[in-house]
């Protein structure tokens, strides 16, 4: 068994055919107008690549056994599970949380003043 320099037998296209990424970007509408025109010209003369494009059409690119809605829900839950703890906590700062403690010495002083004033009346 050998591994040829041009890696024939491991790529869906022929030598000189556009890459898998170019075809995927074409189907997803990511290619520029110029690249799209070049690809269309290639497709006109290449049956292999026309077939590769057909494999990517929604009708023929069904993913076996995969429940898409279930999978998307699972992905979203796992992504959110990480996002939530990473978000800044909305809890109040220590100062705001314990500000009421500052009132204790104030009330204690007022109480002492009240007791002192009653006794010396």
């Amino acid at each position, binding site marked *: *068994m*050998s*591994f040829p*320099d041009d*890696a*024939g*037998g*491991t*790529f*869906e*296209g*022929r030598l000189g*055919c*556009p*890459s*898998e*990424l*170019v075809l*995927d*970007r074409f189907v*997803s*509408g*990511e290619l520029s107008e110029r690249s799209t025109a070049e690809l269309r010209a290639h497709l006109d003369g290449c049956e*292999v690549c026309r*077939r590769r494009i057909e*494999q*990517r059409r*929604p009708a023929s*690119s*069904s*993913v*076996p*056994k*995969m429940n*898409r809605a279930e*999978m*998307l829900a*699972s*992905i*979203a839950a*796992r*992504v*959110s599970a*990480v*996002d939530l703890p990473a978000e800044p906590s909305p809890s109040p700062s220590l100062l705001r949380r314990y500000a009421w403690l500052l009132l204790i010495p104030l009330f204690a002083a007022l109480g002492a003043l009240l007791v002192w004033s009653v006794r010396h009346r």
Partner: protein
Amino acid sequence: MTTAVSKLSVDDLPRIFEEYHPMVYRRALRLLGSASDAEDATQEIFVRAFRAVDRFAGPSPAAWLYTITTNYCLSRLRDAGRRRELDEQYEPEEPESLVQPSQMILLRHLLSIADEELAQAAVCVYIEGMSHAEAAEVLGVSKRTVGNHVDRFLAFAKAQIASSAELAAKGVQSLPRRRTE
């Protein structure tokens, strides 16, 4: 239909998943060789992609997902190779496919034991059919680096095949035992 974008957020997950999950599944199936592994991989790849969605800098969601898919699947291949559970199956997606199962199984084995950066370049060039310039863009390295990595992968592949043939002649099995069920 999705056009090139400069930024994505978690809110884009449903739209991007709907548009690109067949592509991710197809690429994972090609690399891993098993439908159930490819399904698991598709889910894991979208989780990883959208946990780090802030790192997407555009313009192509397809190229971004290709990189994540390649890295994740190579990691799975290396793990399977270490556990000696590399799948020996390869089912062409259609009867007229130009891909030869024996070549694909051999390449999968070589990818599982090659250096990571050599394997990444080999996937782009040998499986995805990218030019060195296109692979350089996807991998974020120079065109020259891609050429260097591909040459080194080829030399590594030839050495592995030669040594494996020598050892096989002596009755020693040098390649990891592969899953055949």
